[in-house]
Structure formats: structure tokens, C-alpha cells
């Protein structure tokens, strides 16, 4: 792939029956060689990762790829309140984004996810007759554990305030189970979102047709995958799917206090999407 330093970033609203969805298309100057639909992570992780994702989309565009980033209903600059968002609506948002890309690019189209975006994508693939290549950044495999990790934010604030935090996430889950909204770290979490997230797992159909790339960011000098990602790769291979794995060193940019970008993540991903294209 040859590289130019030209790209076009176009913010716009994608109309849907569920309300306007804020989207950013990052495009090459000429006709695109392929497309990526970015599926964002959950809640605060989306905000923390915006910069890195935008930088990656820009590099992809310089190499000829068009990327669409879409703020799911109730998140970011899209219409609606986070507390009224629902999982099925997010699935429809993904479909709208996917169709938008397909109408503009007839090359290969890749689903590119970060963290819990992998769960949304897996559910979307189960509901739709598509088997695109996947670029999964730091994928989350288990939605229920991810929800617990998120609800734990509330337990942590109580812990810091030295009040009783034990059993708090269980109590929050019980609230959600009783169809009540809970508030955690400034996010109102609706039962419809919590239920969708908790039920989601990163599973693909056996013999998934296209390659799947797992890119993990690790701290320090490590070069091996963490146990969760290694098990995921093994499971996919056992189900006869072609898997590409990459480890890059750097900060966990979706959660670090300061906004950071692992130095080699984007270059590694460029190499990876080139492999996914074949």
C-alpha cells in the first residue's frame, strides 16, 4: 500500500428512525480500497480512546481506507440520553453505519472494534448474514464480567469514601434486574443496555469465513498475550477460523488517566488490515 499524506475527515449526522447519529467519516482522497466500521467501547472507554481511534483512522485513510466512526444512540454527540439507549437500537445503528459504508465502497469491509465493541459486533454478526474480516483491539469476551467491571466504579467510590462497598455491584445488578435505572460514574445505565451487554459473549459461528485479528496492548516489556486473549485465539482456531494475533507494548489508552496512544499500535494495525484484505 502506498502512502499519501492526504485524507478527508467529514463529520455529519446519519439520519435514522431512532434519531440523528453523529458520525465521522475519514476518507482517502481517491476511491477507497476498503472500508472499516469502527464499533466503539462502552461508556467512558469510548471517550478515552477517541484520539487514538481518530489517529488510526487518519493513517488508514492515507493508505486508501475509509473509516466510519458512529456515536451509538445516547452516546457522544448522537441524539438521545444514555439512560434511554438500548442494545437493539445500537445494533440498528451498526447496521446503518455498515450500509452507509457499503454504498460508498465495494472493496473489502472490516469490522474494527475496541474493548466491548467486540461484544456488540459479535451480536451483530449473529443477527446478520455477514462474515467480514474482524480487527479486534483488546477484545472483551464476556459481557457479564464487563458489566460487573463497570458497576464496580460505584463500589470503588464508596470504598474511597470508606463506606460499605461490599456486595454493591450485586445490589446494582438486582436493581437493573428489577427494571430500574442505576447511575454509575455519571452514566445512567438503563436495564435494556445492561441486559444486552450482560448477555453478550464474543462468539462467532463455527468456521467463520473471514480472518480475525486480535491486537492486544500490554504494559511493560511483555511480548506474550494475557490468558484471556490467548484462550480466545485458541477457541477461534479450534472452530476453524483464521486468526492473526499481535502484541504491542504501551499504555491501556482506553482507561489511562491521561489520553495516550501506544507508539506501535497504529503501524501494527496497518500491517494487520493488509493481511485481512487478502
Amino acid at each position: 500500500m502506498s502512502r499519501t499524506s492526504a485524507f478527508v475527515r467529514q463529520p455529519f449526522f446519519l439520519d435514522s428512525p431512532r434519531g440523528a447519529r453523529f458520525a465521522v467519516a475519514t476518507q482517502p482522497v481517491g476511491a477507497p480500497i476498503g472500508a472499516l466500521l469502527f464499533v466503539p467501547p462502552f461508556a467512558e472507554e469510548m471517550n478515552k480512546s477517541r484520539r487514538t481511534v481518530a489517529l488510526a483512522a487518519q493513517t488508514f485513510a492515507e493508505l486508501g481506507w475509509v473509516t466510519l466512526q458512529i456515536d451509538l444512540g445516547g452516546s457522544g454527540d448522537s441524539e438521545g440520553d444514555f439512560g434511554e439507549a438500548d442494545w437493539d437500537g445500537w445494533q440498528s445503528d451498526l447496521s446503518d453505519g455498515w450500509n452507509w459504508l457499503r454504498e460508498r465502497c465495494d472493496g473489502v469491509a472490516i469490522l474494527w472494534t475496541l474493548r466491548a465493541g467486540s461484544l456488540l459486533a459479535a451480536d451483530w454478526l449473529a443477527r446478520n448474514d455477514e462474515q467480514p474480516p474482524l480487527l479486534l483491539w483488546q477484545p472483551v469476551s464476556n459481557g457479564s464480567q464487563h458489566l460487573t467491571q463497570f458497576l464496580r466504579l460505584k463500589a470503588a467510590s464508596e470504598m474511597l469514601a470508606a463506606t460499605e462497598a461490599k456486595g454493591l455491584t450485586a445490589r446494582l445488578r438486582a436493581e437493573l434486574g428489577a427494571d430500574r435505572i442505576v447511575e454509575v460514574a455519571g452514566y445512567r445505565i438503563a436495564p435494556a443496555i445492561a441486559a444486552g451487554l450482560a448477555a453478550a459473549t464474543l462468539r462467532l459461528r463455527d468456521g467463520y469465513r473471514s480472518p480475525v485479528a486480535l491486537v492486544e496492548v500490554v504494559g511493560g516489556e511483555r511480548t506474550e498475550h494475557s490468558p484471556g486473549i490467548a484462550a480466545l485465539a485458541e477457541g477461534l482456531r479450534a472452530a476453524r477460523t483464521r486468526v492473526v494475533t499481535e502484541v504491542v507494548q504501551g499504555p491501556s489508552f482506553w482507561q489511562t488517566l491521561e489520553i495516550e496512544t501506544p507508539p506501535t499500535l497504529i503501524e501494527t494495525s496497518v500491517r494487520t488490515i493488509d493481511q485481512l484484505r487478502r
Partner: protein
Amino acid sequence: MNTQKEVLAILDEVLSLRGRAATFGADTPLLGAIPELDSMAVVSVITTLEERFGFAVEDDELDGQTFETVGTLVAFVDRKLQ
């Protein structure tokens, strides 16, 4: 595996301490002593420990004491790894 070294690397990374954690010892106080360690950061540290070491932390295993010092956090991880 040296648990303390791994734990310090995770603290340094998640809290963006830029190498400061390398100077920490077992009795270095954490909660209330390190301004970067707010509730968001506590959760990020726990999540990273779960993913890096491959265990799951139950809600009722955590209390303020877990994050009192480097030593109490390392002891918690060691217990989880047994």
C-alpha cells in the same frame, strides 16, 4: 513471576506515573496518598489485574484495605493466584 513487580508496572501504566512506581516499596501507601488513584483508577487497576493475571475478582473480596499500601495489594493478588 514477581507479583510486586507486575503490580507496580500496572500501577505505573494505569495511573500514568511515568516511572514513579519504580520507587515504590511494599509499605508505600496508595489510597489517599496517591492523588491519581481515584475511583475510576481503582477500577482500572482491578480490571487490568484480572486481565493480566487471568482471575476474576468478586465484589465482596474488595474493601478499602486492599488498596491501602503496595504490600496489601500485592498480598491480595498473591491470594488470588493461589
